[in-house]
């Protein structure tokens, strides 16, 4: 099982993504789990009047978590993620649907590793959180 996934892997293969449309409840629970009281994530008058945002801002590291979900769900317990890098380039707001996805960049069959490109896109198709990950497949 493990080896067949790696054996057949090639650059360009895509990682299935997911749509995420968090509401205020989920965004609140995320901030609460983090213990993050930054007002832009729950206080609409503050977000608009003081920081000039058109909506409640989705937490940046929540988008980062969805990148990890893309990798881990695709990996399906046949290996580990050993490296992750991402950045938040553009804000997304509650009410929007964002989509995760990715593709295989390179495969090292000898080492049993693969480098991945991952992303979160907004509804306009802009990549708002680009990232890369490295996975190591378990030995059969």
């Amino acid at each position, binding site marked *: 099982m493990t080896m067949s996934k790696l054996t057949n892997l090639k650059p360009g293969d895509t990682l299935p993504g997911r749509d*995420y449309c*968090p509401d205020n409840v*989920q965004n609140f*629970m*995320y901030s*609460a*789990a*983090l*213990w*993050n*009281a*930054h*007002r*832009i994530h729950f*206080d609409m008058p*503050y977000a608009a009047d*003081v*920081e000039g945002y058109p909506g409640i801002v989705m937490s*940046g*590291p*929540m988008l*980062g*978590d*969805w990148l*990890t*979900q893309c990798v*881990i*769900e695709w990996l399906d317990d046949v290996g*580990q*993620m*050993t*490296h*992750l*890098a*991402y*950045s*938040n*380039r*553009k*804000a997304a707001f509650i009410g929007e649907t964002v989509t995760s996805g990715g593709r295989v960049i390179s495969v090292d069959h000898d080492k049993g590793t693969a480098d991945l490109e991952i992303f979160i896109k907004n509804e306009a198709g802009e990549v708002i959180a680009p990232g890369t990950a490295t996975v190591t497949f378990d030995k059969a």
Partner: protein
Amino acid sequence: MTKDHNQLNMSGADKKHSASTTELLSEELLSHIGRTSAPRTEIVSRREIRKYAIATGWKKKEYLDGDVAPPLFHLPLFWDIVELDQLSPDGVSIDRLLPKFPLEKAMAGGLDIEYFRPIRAGDVLVATRTLTNIYEKSGSQGPIIFYEVVMRVETEAGDLVLTEKTTRLLR
């Protein structure tokens, strides 16, 4: 001042001179590079893993049950907990590892993480944060200050769990 400290300091200064047209970063400010926080120890609880896995919408059972933590669980585990009067009016806690910067509007940043071992319920983990770089670049809308903080997470026995480099921008 250690030798390492001076080397880090010089690399910060080099980047500043190669990339910037303004001079926002004083020698005093750059002298904070190399500063390290006191180690922080936290116990990983099943309840906190479950809260985090549910709030982020995971489908994986071992995360939802709280047995193993999702890859970014160290963010809530080591998020600063301060008293109410230590929050700024925007609800953000002041990071005492950082000096006072001449620019203050925090922009999006990035994370770069290396993983060595998963985090499980019951683990006792120790985190140490180091301010590893400060540099300046000129952007289209004016100067930007970048800073980097490296967090090293280990078990109590000293086994490395992960290292994380955070890069943040100030305008």
